[in-house]
């Protein structure tokens, strides 16, 4: 493949992904709120096609086109799904943190619904990435699990967000749930760097772990195409989950006048058997 081709591929995949994110945000406003009559099918189909197409291309690049790695051989190719999944998990959880802060500054059901969907989708991608990492660990390190700082921190992160989701399930009053889960979301996110440093010290006081990586540019290209494809997938997942979350909120907040104003108002407390 010529250099021009590679540049074109990079630019095209990035453009497709960013357009999809933009479209996703737009659909989130137009299509996701309950009662919307907007026909999103063509756009959704287009985004799905873009995601699947880029994924197919990325997997072709990753599985066939890129050279095998010097030490790990073909085993390393799992990186093309593992790393994008982890990136998307972090992205989703960062958005979740922003939503939590945003909700405490100005309460809105939309922020709460987005927080719920980002946490859940982030957890999904994180769990998927962690399993892939464990599968990768077996042939390279010889075990599925190693107390490597990255792995440990990731596992702790996932448990933290499982607790966040559990809290959301356990609180019935939607308004309290939104406030409390925002507080927990902020604390959980702030904890991530602390966990990272502590686990790193915990390990590094025993042995120094260093993995200097010099990556082939072709591998970077394949990784990027896969990451952009996964970003479209993330947008789609988030969009659908956000729509469900908004519908659930509306079902919970039984008073019909509560939703259009989009500010949590007073309501009856026994209205949430849905969650």
């Amino acid at each position, binding site marked *: 493949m010529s250099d021009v081709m590679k540049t074109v591929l990079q630019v095209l995949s990035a453009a497709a992904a960013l357009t999809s994110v933009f479209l996703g945000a737009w659909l989130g406003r137009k299509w996701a709120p309950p009662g919307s009559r907007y026909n999103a099918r063509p756009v959704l189909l287009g985004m799905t096609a873009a995601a699947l197409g880029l994924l197919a291309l990325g997997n072709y690049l990753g599985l066939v086109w890129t050279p095998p790695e010097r030490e790990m051989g073909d085993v390393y190719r799992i990186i093309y799904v593992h790393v994008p999944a982890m990136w998307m998990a972090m992205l989703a959880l960062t958005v979740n943190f922003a939503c939590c802060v945003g909700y405490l500054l100005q309460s809105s059901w939309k922020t709460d619904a987005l927080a719920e969907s980002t946490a859940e989708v982030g957890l999904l991608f994180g769990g998927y990435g962690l399993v892939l990492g464990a599968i990768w660990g077996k042939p390279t390190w010889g075990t599925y699990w190693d107390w490597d700082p990255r792995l440990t921190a990731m596992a702790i992160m996932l448990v*933290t967000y499982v607790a966040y989701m559990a809290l959301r399930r356990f609180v019935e009053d939607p308004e309290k749930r939104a406030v409390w889960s925002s507080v*927990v979301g902020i604390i959980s996110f702030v904890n991530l760097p602390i966990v990272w440093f502590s686990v790193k*010290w915990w390990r590094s006081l025993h042995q120094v772990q260093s993995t200097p990586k010099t990556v082939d540019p072709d591998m970077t290209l394949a990784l990027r195409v896969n990451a952009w494809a996964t970003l479209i997938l993330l947008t789609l997942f988030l969009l659908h989950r956000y729509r469900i979350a908004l519908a659930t909120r509306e079902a919970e907040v039984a008073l019909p006048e509560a939703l259009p104003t989009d500010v949590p108002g007073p309501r009856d407390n026994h209205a949430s058997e849905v969650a």
Partner: protein
Amino acid sequence: MRRGRPISLLKTVGVLLAKDLLIEWRTRARLNALIFFALATLLLFSFAVGPDTKVLARNAGGYLWLALLFASVLALGESFRVEQENLTLDGLRLAPADARAIFLSKALGNALLLMLLGALLIPVMVALYGVDVAMGVGPFAATVTLGCMAISAPGTVYSAIASNARARDVLLPLLLFPLIIPALLAAAKATSLVLQGDPMNQLGSWFGLLIGFNLIYWGLGFLLFPRVIED
């Protein structure tokens, strides 16, 4: 919420803390239960690991902190259940007491309780596991103080949340345990170093981590707690 000057905030904290300690002293139910729970936990570790005193002594720091952490779940859960019975938390807020003062007093009260528990567990540990405190009482007291404060700040915020939720007994440890891992790690490591000596001078970095953890969570709790108990 009334925003008092720092002096009046501290005064409120003092009054509330005195109130909590008085309740604690008059019933002594929580403290007694905690002591025996923690003792039983320490005893169970020796059965789970076996009678090899060398292994027990080497892991004593970890066992101490696990016992304290398990006990802290009981202590933290109780600290807001006391307020719920007669809706006294609402009364406090109508008094009006600054919500931040409520946080500080509750967190300080829980930290004090845990520190007391830690101090009581040390002689037991010396007897059961055959450890000796190599670096003296000063660093040990510092470790226990920092570790207990690290547990109590996020623990107070989470117990205020969990005490109002469904399945609160499950929710508090579920929320607290993953969060507390850095503090547990640092406190257990620091305790092991204090007990066995610190030839590589690592104690400082673990203390640093504990202090940082404390600063962050006491600060976050101070900022966020008013939102947790608002209605």
